[in-house]
């Protein structure tokens, strides 16, 4: 396993909720990343943001790690959940909130907007 793969695995295994994104949660630099941030902020789950624009090895490595070609990527308890479209669909269906609750992660809003 390469350093990047090892580092990604350490991050997703040590944090409950991790979002690999372009930019930061305070300042997203891509519309898709911004949408996922908005959803997570609304749901009120605590999460760690990783800015892939700061590290090319992580940016490419995370695509390989999940076998998923785009960023953002959301992980809950080490498991790859999906990108922007999937997170949005799950949020709208209430499944994302359920997934947080099922994993013992506190959320503020269990209703979809």
């Amino acid at each position: 396993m390469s350093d990047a793969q090892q580092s990604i695995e350490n991050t997703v295994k040590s944090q409950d909720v991790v979002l690999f994104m372009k930019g930061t949660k305070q300042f997203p630099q891509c519309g898709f990343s911004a949408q996922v941030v908005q959803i997570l902020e609304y749901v009120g789950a605590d999460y760690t943001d990783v800015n892939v624009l700061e590290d090319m090895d992580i940016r490419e490595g995370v695509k390989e790690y999940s076998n998923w070609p785009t960023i953002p990527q959301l992980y809950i308890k080490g498991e790859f959940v999906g990108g922007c479209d999937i997170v949005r669909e799950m949020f709208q269906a209430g499944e994302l909130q359920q997934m947080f609750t099922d994993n013992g992660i506190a959320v503020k809003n269990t209703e979809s907007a």
Partner: protein
Amino acid sequence: MPMNAAEIEKMITDAMPDARVEIRDLAGDGDHYAAVVVSEAFRGKSRVQQHQMVYSALQGKMGGTLHALALQTSAPEA
């Protein structure tokens, strides 16, 4: 080089012949699309798996040539 909608549709239907594909050009710039794909091949698969099937049909273009494709997938309603 951006891709045109017909090209995207063809790649998907080549891989999934039964697929019903609707593509919209979101920004009118040939670079931001939304696609709805309905195929029997998705039945019983998770959302991640369904999207991965479409990405694999696009043979690595997703995330590269194709920057923005908002994807919605489902199996046909029974």
